């Protein structure tokens, strides 16, 4: 148990968060008025809010959000499952790690931004290409994380399973997965944020819809900076929601740690 400060109470924390949010908006509004920025440089929070509301009402926001959301979730599903399976195999078979490891590291050494055009070139400019880019972005950290997780399983638990004559599947299901779960879930948290980045990078390269496309369009074409803020804000909300979603699962599943 850490020390119980006055700020650990739920409602006080909520109030503090609200207060800091309001302060942030106030400073922003003040800056715009004081410097007389034109809206295409820095729109006021009020303008962004109005823009967001209109984009929400005429369906623009949801149309783009939906596309990006599918890319993020698809990238997560593909990247996490692929990296977890490969990570498990590499952790269990040193020879495989010796043979495959260098390629994985080499692929990671290339920035995703540089890799994305190649993926688009090969996989087309459709949905699948963005899912691939998102998956690639989170693949390596998830892979390494899985290897660390599986290798951290204590030897005495494995010995217990040997005494009990457990087969490979039982060892996997009853010991390896639950023992590695804290680390795996930690990796998934990072993975959600990386998937958001990956999807946007993919859309930057070639897309005609999605929040990344919207950012690209408003910043380079229409100079509708308020809409750009709306798009960025939506991305932040998606990342926050996914991150705290995994955090919630974590707190439920890992209750045994107290």
């Amino acid at each position: 148990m850490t020390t119980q400060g006055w700020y650990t109470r739920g409602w006080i924390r909520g109030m503090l968060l609200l207060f800091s949010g309001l302060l942030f908006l106030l400073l922003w509004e003040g800056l715009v008025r004081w410097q007389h920025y034109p809206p295409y440089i820095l729109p006021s929070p009020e303008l962004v809010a109005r823009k967001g509301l209109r984009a929400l009402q005429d369906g623009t926001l949801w149309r783009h959000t939906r596309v990006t959301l599918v890319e993020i979730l698809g990238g997560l599903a593909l990247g996490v499952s692929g990296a977890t399976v490969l990570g498990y195999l590499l952790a269990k078979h040193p020879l495989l790690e010796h043979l495959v490891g260098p390629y994985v590291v080499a692929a990671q050494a290339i920035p995703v931004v540089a890799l994305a055009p190649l993926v688009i070139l090969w996989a087309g400019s459709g949905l699948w290409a963005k899912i691939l880019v998102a998956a690639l972005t989170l693949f390596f950290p998830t892979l390494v994380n899985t290897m660390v997780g599986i290798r951290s399983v204590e030897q005495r638990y494995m010995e217990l399973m040997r005494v009990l004559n457990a087969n490979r599947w039982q060892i996997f299901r009853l010991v390896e997965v639950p023992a590695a779960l804290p680390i795996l879930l930690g990796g998934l948290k990072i993975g959600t944020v990386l998937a958001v980045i990956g999807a946007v990078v993919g859309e930057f390269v070639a897309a005609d819809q999605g929040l990344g496309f919207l950012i690209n369009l408003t910043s380079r074409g229409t100079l509708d900076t308020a809409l750009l803020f709306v798009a960025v804000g939506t991305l932040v909300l998606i990342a926050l929601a996914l991150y705290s979603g995994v955090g919630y699962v974590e707190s439920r599943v890992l209750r045994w740690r107290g």
Partner: protein
Amino acid sequence: MPPILSVQDVSYVFVDTHPVRALDGITLEARSGEFIALVGPSGCGKSTLLRLLAGLLRPTEGRILFDGRVLRGPRPDIGLVFQEVNLLPWRTVEANVRLPLEILGTPRAEADARVREMLDLVGLRGFENAYPRQLSGGMQQRAALARALVKLPRLLLLDEPFGALDALTRERMNLELLRIWAHHRQTTVMVTHSIQEAVFVADRVWVMTPRPGRIAGSVSIADLPRPRTLEMMAWPEFGRLTQAVRSLIQEAE
């Protein structure tokens, strides 16, 4: 009656940087229902011997017979309690005790009944849904004992099960162990480095000496009646028996 457990001229060599002879020509036996203690200083290979009995290791030379068959690996009718508490921290007490039956594929209803019976036996009723970290050391080792007993093993192996507990708790747990053992009277082998503890729990104490591990001899504790009580530790007979064990260790040095 032939012995149910028979260790015949067993040696064990493990290879570190060079081969190390951990056990050399070990021969001992236990009758069905007998409680034997393996006592010796640290490094005498008694834990290694227990691992051989559990089927976790194979003898380099010699053989181990249990119930007339050569031991070739872990068996469902052999239960082991580890030196350090080895409960799975993400499972409740109840789920930890159930684990062996889950792996064996015991039908649910039968497993439920057996788990409940074992938790009652070791005195953990009411703690079914607690996680290991919420239990004291003594209670954790009770749960580990219940887990080892839940398959109704015919051979129970105990590797200094109460070594990590304080002296008072340890005495109480030894009494508890004997009470639990009296229920099914399974053949039991307990490893310990405490002569007092060995004499207190066992029917026969086998004495081991180190480097390489050898059997120096054995002392029958048949003169101490069962059920054992803590007062017996003040009996002259108890003193004579511990002295007999101690002199076996000293002779070998």
